[in-house]
């Protein structure tokens, strides 16, 4: 057993030395997760990430109310920066034209009678114009604008109720403590399992981490075995008096070390560049990654056994990886998928690794909360290894 581990380590060390000396592969290896995280971090916007969005405002109201709405929009801030950069437009048509020319990402039309309508205790109507060519930004912009308009409406409502209360106090035996109790009798309070707000990036970071690590192991292992097979160096190892198991364990060891290293890069980037907070134990995160790697080793060996050439291995792996990207819940919550897709997703080890990472990183879960996911990863890894090892032996005895 000890010999097996020592022999495996010799092969792993050789693989890692070769890898470190291949400057191009090393640079790609480090840049890939940085590139991926930066890309995902910046292309998927959250409310917090919206800054200086150009919107057009057609303030047709000459009264005080219109000016107040515009000022409110101009001063709306997130994380210390202005959400909107307000530009003046004369009317609805010009705002539409502005959106069409992609000069602005949405707009607001304040009607000329806003102040007078409010003064006469009637309901006023402010129009929000959305950019339908960009549903994601548009949805977030609409949400912020609606909240802003609703907030402004509430303030006006509260001041009206306050003045009404002065007269009703005399007749009502139990006047309400606040005017808001009239306008909004029930309010909801949102609370989570951990303090602070989470955004889409918190959700996606754990997904990317699991994905980067595991696909690195899967592709790396298959490519490494088929490359040696193609170059003929595998014969040099096979002709030595060592067990076949130590060859594949050595290769898996090298790829696992590489995978974990990449995982750490993603983790550091998430924390220091994108402000992701890890609420659970860092050790547990590492354990999930390690077991995730273990769950993929068998699959990697299976692919190596099936494909004798590097190119075939790459193509085979692409077939696995591509659906896994979308099905594992790395980018989209599984709950959004149809039931049948959810069932398929639960056949993939990546899904369990991602679920476990989210429970730990976002919800502060401990080992008891991720026990089931860890068991699935171990069982999946063990079963695929049991199938893959005899197949690998067959490959090398062809």
């Amino acid at each position: 057993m000890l010999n097996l581990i020592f022999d495996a380590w010799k092969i792993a060390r050789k693989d890692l030395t070769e890898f470190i000396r291949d400057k191009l592969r090393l640079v790609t290896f480090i840049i890939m997760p940085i590139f991926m995280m930066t890309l995902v971090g910046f292309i998927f916007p959250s409310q917090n990430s919206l800054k200086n969005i150009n919107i057009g405002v057609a303030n047709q109201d000459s009264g005080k109310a219109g000016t107040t709405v515009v000022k409110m929009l101009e001063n709306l801030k997130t994380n210390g920066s202005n959400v909107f950069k307000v530009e003046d437009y004369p009317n609805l048509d010009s705002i539409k034209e502005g959106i069409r020319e992609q000069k602005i990402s949405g707009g607001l039309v304040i009607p000329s009678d806003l102040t007078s309508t409010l003064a006469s205790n009637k309901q006023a109507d402010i129009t929000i114009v959305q950019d339908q060519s960009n549903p994601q930004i548009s949805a977030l912009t609409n949400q912020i604008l609606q909240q802003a308009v609703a907030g402004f409406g509430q303030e006006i409502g509260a001041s009206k109720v306050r003045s009404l209360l002065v007269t009703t106090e005399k007749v009502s035996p139990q006047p309400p403590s606040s005017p808001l109790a009239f306008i909004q009798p029930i309010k909801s309070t949102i609370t989570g399992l951990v303090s602070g707000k989470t955004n889409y990036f918190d959700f996606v970071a754990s997904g990317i981490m699991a994905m980067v690590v595991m696909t690195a192991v899967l592709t790396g292992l298959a490519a490494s075995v088929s490359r040696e097979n193609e170059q003929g160096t595998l014969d040099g190892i096979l002709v030595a008096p060592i067990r076949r198991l130590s060859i594949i364990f050595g290769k898996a060891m090298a790829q696992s070390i590489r995978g974990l290293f990449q995982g750490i890069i993603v983790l550091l980037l998430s924390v220091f560049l994108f402000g992701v907070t890890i609420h659970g134990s860092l050790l547990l995160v590492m354990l999930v990654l390690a077991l995730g790697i273990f769950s993929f080793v068998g699959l990697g060996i299976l692919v190596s056994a099936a494909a004798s050439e590097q190119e075939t291995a790459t193509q085979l792996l692409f077939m696995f990886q591509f659906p896994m990207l979308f099905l594992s819940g790395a980018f989209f919550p599984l709950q959004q998928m149809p039931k049948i897709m959810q069932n398929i997703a639960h056949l993939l080890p990546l899904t369990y690794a991602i679920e476990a990472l989210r429970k730990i990183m976002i919800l502060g879960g401990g080992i008891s909360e991720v026990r089931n996911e860890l068991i699935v990863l171990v069982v999946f890894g063990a079963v695929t290894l049991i199938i893959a090892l005899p197949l690998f032996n067959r490959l090398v005895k062809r």
Partner: protein
Amino acid sequence: MENNQDDTNIIEVKNLVKRFGKFTAVDNVSFNVKKGEIFGFLGPNGAGKSTTIRILTTLSLPTSGEAKVSDHDVVHGQDQVRRRIGLVAEKVILYNRLTADENLEFFGSLYHLPKKVVHERTEKWIYKLHMDEWRKQQVGTFSTGMKQRINIVRALLTEPEVLFLDEPTLGLDPQTTHVIRTFLRELNDQGVTIVLTTHDMNEAEALSDTVAIVDHGKIAAIDTVENLKKLVPNVKDPTLEDVFLKITGEETRDIASGKITSSRRFGPH
């Protein structure tokens, strides 16, 4: 050619068969190699030479039949066989991004040889192959000839009783070819049995004590070079190439998907 062979068989092959699906690559082959001889294993492309060598070096399992190297069965005594052989395959077994020394240390470690022993054995051979000054350089920077010389040192780390060489001088310049051939003779003088697969008839003739000519998976002829030449009595001063063409014919062999077909027939030799 100096002859230091004795009558003991170091390789014994009996009724060896290897099939790949319906294709029979090695068809009931039997032969022996005497201890200390240089055994030339010749044949056209796809004749079954490499498959036989792969079985003898434990890289492939036979479908049926028996083969022993140094009294150890190639199926049931694989590790014992592996400790007694060296392999210089057609493709160079070295890692380009490791230095010559690192490659030798790595392969030595797979045989559980202490570093000190690897260094001693490296020293022993590397000077003779004129590669001592290149030891600290990455193999990827070497020419084909330099790589092949380090490749031979690698195969000798185990101090093998039998050295298998598959096309050891293919694509090398005349100088390197000369160095390698001289070295192989010296090695043989020291008692190492050499099994040489080559398409270079001059090389086979210059080095081999015994030559086996394989065709269509079978041994077509096996004898000393001198005796084989008697098979072409009509040719004045016959060469091994004349013998080879007489036995295997002049048709080229094309192999695809395990099928061998004959193609163009060239004019009479």
